[in-house]
């Protein structure tokens, strides 16, 4: 009995010791004795009057909106990433948007140029400028004295090497098409690269900002290290310290970053979390600093009502739609397209599917406020959906064809909008709609094969270039509906070639009018690629407003109050 007591005592001591050892490995709990009413605790952990504290914060806020914050950098930012780029070779990074591999790449490489989320303009990043007088020959100026983290210069030759590498078909870069639009590159001096395009493109900087061609790696490291994809060397604000695939990346501050004293934080952790529920749980548990509402708009609204700072990201061009295949019956007949367009009711759809949330309300026009080529002309708005006209047209078509109009609506299995549309459309006389649900894996091949009548599609983005050109120009690579219109081609060509925003605005107004008049699609959502809402941050994350672009956030600008 005595031995047993002694043993029990030893076990208890061991357990207590273990618990204490574990607790010793964590940060010490903050001493958080509450201050008196009307007082708050300041950084020095002293209780001060609320008003005084507010004054200091306001001053700080003013300071952070200036050019640079000279305070000592510090802290860690944890961002919940939604996609892991499997390779950090710049040639392997394709799209540049807030949910692509560019989120990781921009921390290591920075961007040559980027699209500002406030103005929609293309602004210089790692490059000093990118200019042209004729939209065919472009001059890229690099910043003098900037170095990759291996000490080699970030100059015109480095950019030429990277772009030539992407243009080489042997490297199978997703940026091949973009890089192949360059006919010739000449290094004029260490800081100047003269680029001649195959054809005029006034939106060449926008093209660079939207593709992986905006990322430049060290040529020396690219040549020397066969495993560059896992050990990237760039000139970005951070350097890769650790990469646990499918889990997280830890990046540490680049002390020689060209835009000193940025970056403001010591460490950036990009944690992969694709499930929206997990992302929100992790965020409200205080285990992450920045989260997106990607694929779940409720993250944005819930976080907003809980008092977290929210940063909406506008998607001012195009959106989610039902695209009609004009190359195939019955949508080769404009009366059918008009009838189905009029029969649809995007406002009702938003009411039913999203509780009428204003942020997911159907877009009023193809190009909207927030875009720098927005034209407020009311005639450019989408035509009104008129149910009476729809029924009349359907009755006429039935009389003429000897039976009701029948077509299938194609979409990815699980998209509830499909069922909604089918139920609403089938309420009309002389209209019979069937759903053709396809596996996500079949979506691309279905588009390429043209084997659909009407299909759910996402068209557009942040500017008509380059997507609208690819989707609506005669013979373009993504013109799956084989739509061909000389006036539209001319408008798209003019929009692409123009340097002057006013000329672009006019060209794209023509594009909008032609697309509206031909009832090619019915837009029901402003969503682009599922990026509903925007970003949500913890309260101690600062400067995030300045960091938002139409690609990944500008990591160097983000600060954290510690």
């Amino acid at each position: 009995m005595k031995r047993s007591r002694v043993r029990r005592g030893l076990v208890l001591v061991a357990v207590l010791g273990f618990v204490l050892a574990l607790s010793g490995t964590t940060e010490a709990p903050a001493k958080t004795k509450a201050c008196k009413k009307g007082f708050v605790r300041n950084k020095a952990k002293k209780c001060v009057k609320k008003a005084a504290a507010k004054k200091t914060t306001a001053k700080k806020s003013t300071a952070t909106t200036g050019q640079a914050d000279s305070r000592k950098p510090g802290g860690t930012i944890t961002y919940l990433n939604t996609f892991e780029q499997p390779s950090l070779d710049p040639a392997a990074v394709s799209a540049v948007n807030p949910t692509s591999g560019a989120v990781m790449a921009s921390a290591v490489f920075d961007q040559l140029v980027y699209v500002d989320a406030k103005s929609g303009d293309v602004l210089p990043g790692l490059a000093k400028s990118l200019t042209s007088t004729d939209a065919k020959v472009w001059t890229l100026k690099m910043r003098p004295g900037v170095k990759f983290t291996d000490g080699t210069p970030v100059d015109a030759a480095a950019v030429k090497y990277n772009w030539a590498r992407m243009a080489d078909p042997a490297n199978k870069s997703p940026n091949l098409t973009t890089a192949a639009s360059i006919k010739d590159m000449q290094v004029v001096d260490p800081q100047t690269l003269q680029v001649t395009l195959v054809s005029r493109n006034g939106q060449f900087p926008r093209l660079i900002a939207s593709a992986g061609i905006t990322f430049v790696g060290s040529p020396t490291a690219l040549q020397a290290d066969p495993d560059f994809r896992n050990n990237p060397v760039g000139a970005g604000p951070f350097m890769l310290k650790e990469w646990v695939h499918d889990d997280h990346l830890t990046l540490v501050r680049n002390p020689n970053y060209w835009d000193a004293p940025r970056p403001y934080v010591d460490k950036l952790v990009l944690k992969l979390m694709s499930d929206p529920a997990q992302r929100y749980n992790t965020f409200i548990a205080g285990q992450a600093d920045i989260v997106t509402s990607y694929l779940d708009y409720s993250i944005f609204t819930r976080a907003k009502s809980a008092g977290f700072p929210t940063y909406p990201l506008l998607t001012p061009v195009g959106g989610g739609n039902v695209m009609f295949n004009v190359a195939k019956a019955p949508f080769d007949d404009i009366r059918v397209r008009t009838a189905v367009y009029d029969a649809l009711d995007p406002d009702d759809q938003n009411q039913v599917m999203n509780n009428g949330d204003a942020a997911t309300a159907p877009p009023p026009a193809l190009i909207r406020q927030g875009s720098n080529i927005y034209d407020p002309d009311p005639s450019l708005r989408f035509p009104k959906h008129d149910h009476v006209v729809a029924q009349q047209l359907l009755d006429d078509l039935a009389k003429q064809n000897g039976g009701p109009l029948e077509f299938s609506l194609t979409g990815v299995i699980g998209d509830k909008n499909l069922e909604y549309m089918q139920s609403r459309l089938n309420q009309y006389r002389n209209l019979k709609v069937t759903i053709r649900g396809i596996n996500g894996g079949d979506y691309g091949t279905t588009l390429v094969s043209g084997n659909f009548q009407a299909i759910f599609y996402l068209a557009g983005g942040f500017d008509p270039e380059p997507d609208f050109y690819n989707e609506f120009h005669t013979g373009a690579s993504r013109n799956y509906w084989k739509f061909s219109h000389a006036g539209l081609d001319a408008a798209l060509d003019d929009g692409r070639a123009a340097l002057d925003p006013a000329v672009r605005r006019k060209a794209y107004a023509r594009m909008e009018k032609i697309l509206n008049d031909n009832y090619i699609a019915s837009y029901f959502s402003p969503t682009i690629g599922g990026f509903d809402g925007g970003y949500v941050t913890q309260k101690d994350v600062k400067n995030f407003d300045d960091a938002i672009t139409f690609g990944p956030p500008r990591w160097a600008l983000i600060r954290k109050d510690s």
Partner: protein
Amino acid sequence: MPSYIVRRVLLLVPTVFFALSFLFVLFFQLPGDPANLIAGGANRTPDPGVIQRARERYDLDKPVPTQFVNYWKRTLRWDLGESFADRRSVNDILGEHAKNSFRLGIWAILIEIVVGIGVGLIAALRRYSWSDRITTVITAGMSAVPVFVLGFVLQYIFAVYPNKHGWPDFLKLRTQGLGPNTWTFFFVPTGEEWRYVILPAVTLASVTTALVARMMRGSMLEVLRADYMRTARAKGLDERSVIVKHGLRNALIPVVTLIGIDFGTIIGVAVLTETTFSWPGLGSEIARSVTRRDLPVMLGLTLSVVVIYAVASLAVDLSYAWFDPRIRFGRRGDA
């Protein structure tokens, strides 16, 4: 015994061959074109030229029998290929994810052994007591709650709630991911890491722990009524020796079988737990490879899971001899 082990290992060859061949054939019956996914992903819009290049690069333009023969030629050289989706070596992917699965699996199995066997034993020894009744109710509940529900509930209780109410940091557990990835002796979480392991390990172990406890209770009750237990007591052995040496070892045989089979499941198919906690293990990676039509990853990782299952099953069979010395292998007519 050695000849038995050799026979069992040799049996692994046809098992692996048929399992992987079946999956290979099944893959081409699945809807969805892998080349399309390689070229651009699910509901995006890939370029037709890119799709064609992807087909050529991965031999997807060749007839299925040719692909099948080529696959086995490569596999016999232990070349598991390259992921369709991200062009990484499958050997590398296997190495990374298997480690994580084992780390989580070991802790889940330890919970099953300590809690499951312990609780079941106490419930059997104190039959119809309050502790027995509570055990019955809790284990029934635990085996009925889906792991992803339990996962989210635990995340709320041990991470979200403490954060909302300003609990001390050491009481806040982590909800997601692998954490700092710092381990001692391969599986002992070090520093911050333990805060990341607890919740997924408990969630992963929950259902089987409940089953182990119920099975242990039933098995022990059966053994307690056996003649040899009465004989052991009649010989004058103290109760502790009777329970541990004579009762427990016999009662453990079915329980060990359950835990052994579960080890294979935990390592290879813990998809729900791994997904709920964003734990990059084998199960979630296999599931992801199926949705991405990533054949090399799917087959490479399945190969490892089949082997793990077979080895776990062999270890369980061999352990019978230790628990019950009457059991001998390898001789005709033996049990």
